């Protein structure tokens, strides 16, 4: 792998140059406590020190709502409306979100590719950014606190800039014409990185891995946690909508007022909504709030071959953004019998 | 069918009844009683159901109550919201910032533009041009309808930009706003308003070919709120009457009363026990000097159409106001777009003691008064709302009687024509019937 180094000032210059290549999105502070990926207007607004964005990066490749087809009933024809090939550059993606995108890729591109996602993804550039976990993070027990693939460039924080890993040919192409901004990596830089990773490992509140969790989830299906926690649940779907790997969508026809044309759209759905398991005739396969709550715990912890562990990447969003303060990680620890690290 | 008459009377010996006046806000009818020789009584029956706003908000938190008050009416939701919020602020003893005041005024102007445009273009002009509704009018007069819809849109968009939507704005809170409009959105509004100067004159130009009906000419008292900056606007704290009197808004209860009448869920207002007029014509009559230059120029040109003694002139006064307010809104939006302090925080109300606050403002249809009293826990203990339509209801009936009597004397016997003429008189007041219902003192 190729490694280069960049200074803080040059990073801003590099970001400015990136802006010229497409639409650049980066984390930005949107309120006291929350961050979101926003289109970069002034590179100085880019937030390097953040934990999680309120909306997951998947929305850039799989928008909240998109038109799949347009139709005209007089012609009885569905016309596919594929997205335009627009270059989207995501800067500042944490490891958990990078793995999440790989999970999305596996679901949307492997086997039968989804054309909409595919076109957007092919035109996307992912630039990673290292991070220090907070009390909500548990990517380590999902064994993804360090990523080897899924990014074009990855920026590792150094005391005096960033060490940049180049992940793909696209990544090389981003670096090569801008070599005036980059320098060689020194031995000290490497020591700094390894120190950073050691600190990071220490910062997690949980240790080890949770590979056995899925079996325990199944063996403890009647655990009282479900009833207790589902009772708190607002059914608002925030946990799934902020989740970087949730991908359920619903499809709906939007007829227009002329009585003949319209659009077939798809939009993000949530398994926490009543209609998710509802079939014609009125039977609901996930009838109660608790059924729906339980379903998410199973789904998120199911085996995912792409990450070798689970569909949950431990980003902490579902807990951080839960208005009802339901602690996903603690609840899982209760099921798995795991303990927090004593400090 | 224009109106339903109970009997197709050939002479005026029979009573006449209009069940549902079309093209006004709310449900009201007209009943004309004859005693065989002359018109005795004309009643405007308001059978819009009561909603008891003053009673249901008692004992409720004042911040929730001010979210409920504007739901009195959709046409002038912003008017109710701003007036109620100001009354609540007075009760608490909270003084909003200059910027909040300016933004509220701009929002309020948005309400004026939208409400006037709707009334003039969609509800009134079809009368003058001889169509049952604006859709059919639009088939022959596309330009007029387009101008009307553009003005309605800008009025709505001003309210949406500042207040979150154009009916029942939630982003008008005690102490300020949740989020302020961006510089860019204000610039856009200013630019759009500038392009609408011509459209704003369209209604006036179309109305001037029609004359006021002399049948409803009569002396009358006008009441209007003195604009706070001596120009021409809807905010202020002193009421001026055309009889030379003036009084502080706080003391409105001494001068303006409401009483219950049997045929209406709307109460009837009076000023020193006389009926009076309020609305665009009253504002113009009392404060026309403060209009912006273009509006004043046009008003002077069409002076004969702006007769303070003829309610039909109210339409013309509204048309003049439309010109004025498009100009004024553009000015405010432009100045706000450079001066706005985007991070100015709303002043959170801290309620520690009981208090009562009064606020009056000029709604599109005239004077609107709110009294809100709260206890030290911030719960509403008393309130009083008097709406313009309730205030002018008695004079509408008086004018209807004048019209019916005159037609009777002229020997007009076609009930259809009479009905249409009576309806047009009502419409010239632009009454807001749902506003007028559910308002009175809590004893």
């Amino acid at each position, binding site marked *: 792998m190729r490694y280069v180094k960049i200074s803080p000032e040059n990073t801003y210059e590099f970001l400015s140059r990136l802006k010229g290549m497409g639409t650049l999105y980066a984390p930005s502070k949107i309120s006291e406590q929350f961050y979101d990926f926003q289109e970069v207007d002034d590179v100085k607004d880019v937030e390097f020190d953040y934990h999680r964005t309120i909306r997951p990066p998947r929305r850039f490749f799989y928008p909240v709502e998109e038109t799949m087809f347009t139709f005209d009933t007089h012609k009885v024809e569905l016309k596919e409306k594929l997205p335009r090939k627009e270059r989207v550059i995501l800067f500042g993606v944490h490891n958990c979100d990078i793995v999440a995108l790989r999970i999305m890729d596996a679901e949307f591109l492997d086997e039968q590719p989804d054309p909409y996602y595919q076109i957007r993804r092919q035109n996307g550039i992912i630039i990673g950014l290292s991070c220090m976990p907070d009390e909500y993070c548990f990517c380590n027990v999902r064994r993804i606190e360090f990523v080897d693939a899924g990014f074009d460039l990855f920026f590792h924080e150094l005391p005096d800039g960033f060490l940049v890993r180049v992940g793909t040919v696209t990544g090389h192409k981003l670096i090569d014409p801008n070599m005036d901004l980059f320098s060689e990596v020194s031995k000290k830089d490497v020591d700094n990185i390894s120190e950073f990773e050691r600190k990071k490992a220490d910062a997690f509140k949980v240790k080890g891995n949770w590979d056995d969790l899925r079996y325990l989830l199944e063996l403890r299906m009647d655990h009282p946690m479900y009833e207790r926690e589902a009772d708190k649940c607002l059914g608002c779907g925030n946990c799934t909508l902020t989740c970087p790997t949730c991908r359920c969508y619903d499809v709906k026809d939007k007829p227009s007022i002329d009585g003949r044309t319209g659009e077939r759209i798809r939009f993000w759905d949530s398994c926490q909504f009543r209609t998710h398991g509802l079939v014609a005739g009125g039977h609901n*396969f996930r009838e109660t709030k608790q059924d729906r709550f339980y379903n998410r715990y199973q*789904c998120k912890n199911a085996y995912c071959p792409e990450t070798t562990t689970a569909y949950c990447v431990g980003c902490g969003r579902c807990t951080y953004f839960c208005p009802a303060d339901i602690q996903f990680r603690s609840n899982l620890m209760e099921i798995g019998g795991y303990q927090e690290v004593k400090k | 069918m224009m109106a339903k008459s109970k009997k197709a009377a050939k002479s005026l010996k029979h009573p006449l009844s209009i069940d549902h006046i079309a093209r006004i806000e709310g449900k009201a009818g007209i009943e004309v009683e004859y005693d065989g020789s002359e018109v005795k009584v004309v009643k405007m029956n308001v059978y819009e159901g009561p909603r008891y706003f003053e009673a249901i908000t008692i004992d409720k938190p004042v911040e929730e109550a001010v979210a409920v008050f504007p739901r009195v009416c959709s046409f002038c939701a912003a008017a109710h919201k701003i007036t109620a919020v100001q009354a609540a602020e007075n009760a608490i003893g909270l003084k909003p910032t200059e910027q909040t005041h300016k933004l509220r005024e701009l929002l309020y102007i948005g309400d004026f533009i939208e409400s006037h445009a709707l009334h003039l273009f969609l509800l009134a002009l079809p009368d003058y041009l001889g169509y049952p509704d604006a859709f059919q009018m639009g088939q022959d007069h596309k330009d007029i309808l387009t101008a009307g819809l553009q003005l309605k849109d800008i009025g709505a968009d001003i309210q949406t930009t500042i207040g979150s939507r154009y009916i029942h704005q939630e982003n008008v809170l005690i102490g300020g706003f949740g989020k302020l409009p961006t510089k860019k959105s204000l610039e856009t509004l200013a630019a759009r308003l500038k392009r609408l100067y011509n459209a704003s004159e369209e209604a006036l130009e179309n109305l001037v070919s029609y004359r006021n009906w002399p049948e409803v000419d009569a002396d009358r008292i006008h009441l209007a709120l003195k604009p706070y900056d001596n120009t021409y606007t809807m905010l202020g704290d002193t009421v001026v009457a055309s009889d030379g009197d003036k009084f502080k808004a706080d003391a409105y209860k001494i001068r303006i009363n409401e009483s219950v009448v049997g045929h209406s869920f709307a109460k009837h207002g009076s000023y020193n026990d006389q009926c009076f007029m309020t609305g665009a014509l009253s504002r113009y009559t009392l404060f026309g000097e403060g209009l912006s230059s273009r509006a004043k120029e046009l008003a002077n040109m069409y002076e004969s159409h702006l007769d303070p003694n003829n309610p039909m002139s109210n339409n013309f006064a509204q048309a003049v106001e439309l010109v004025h307010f498009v100009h004024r809104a553009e000015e405010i939006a432009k100045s706000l777009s450079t001066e706005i302090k985007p991070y100015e925080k709303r002043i959170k109300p801290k309620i520690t003691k009981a208090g009562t606050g009064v606020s009056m403002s000029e709604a599109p249809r005239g004077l609107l008064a709110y009294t809100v009293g709260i206890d030290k826990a911030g719960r509403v203990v008393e309130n009083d709302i008097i709406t313009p339509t309730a205030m002018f209801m008695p004079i509408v009936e008086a004018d209807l009687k004048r019209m019916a009597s005159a037609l009777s004397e002229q020997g007009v016997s076609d009930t259809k024509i009479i009905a249409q003429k009576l309806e047009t008189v009502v419409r010239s007041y632009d009454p807001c019937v749902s506003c007028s219902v559910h308002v009175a003192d809590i004893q």
Partner: protein
Amino acid sequence: MSKEQEPSIYETHKCRLLRKYQLTDLESLFLFRFEDPGVAQDWRFMPGQFVEVSLLGLGEVPISICSSARRVGFFELCIRNAGRVTSAIHQLQPGSLVGIRGPYGNGFPMEQFHGRDLLCVAAGLGMAPLRSVFLYALDNRWLFGNITIINSAKFGNELLFQKELEAMKDIATAENISIVQTATRDPDFEGLHGRATVHMDKANVDPKNCAVAMCGPPAMYRGMFDYLVEKGYDPRYIFVTLERRMKCGVGKCGHCNIGTATSWKYACKDGPVFDYYAITSIPGLI
């Protein structure tokens, strides 16, 4: 990038409704033909698979195919009038065009059934996919041993394909085919009464060498599994098909997810046909 020319997984084919035939108060049988001769020629499906039927402006609905897999260019759907799209389909007149995507799902592993007796057990709308299984067996009669079909419904007039099955009864006996039709809650029905389970003894098959295909409400499966295993049916040849909400049909939209953390499945892609072991080991399937 070269892949872009491949047809989209959501590609819809135009199909013309040729014939509509009312089966019961709620269900009708619809015969469709592909408009595009090329598609008509190449389009194939397996019993147990389903298609997404699409009406412009209304949406899509998954329906299992109930005709013989042998017929090329044509297929039949038995549709219950139950929702937005299906009620509109019921209003369609012959000649109308609809959109069809698919076929989707795994279908019954018919080749594994070859050389065995066949037992089809249907309850209610479950007869629709099983008719396709049954017709496959008739089309390939020489590949199967004895065949029994048990068709049940709450009321006699709700029995799907009742007349069709009744009509072939005489020949059926000669062909070693047993047809059992029963109404569970209809005392006036002039036939058998009681649930399908009650009439299992009428199955003219050898449990040791029989393939079982079932479709009905999940409650039926539980009792049926116990019965079948007890009677010595080979669990490896017991299959059921499940119903779930399906929007995409290709394992993307997530609505038909089933199972638990160790075995997470999509009914549209991993199913809708599941074997005995899947059903009994994965909680939540039924």
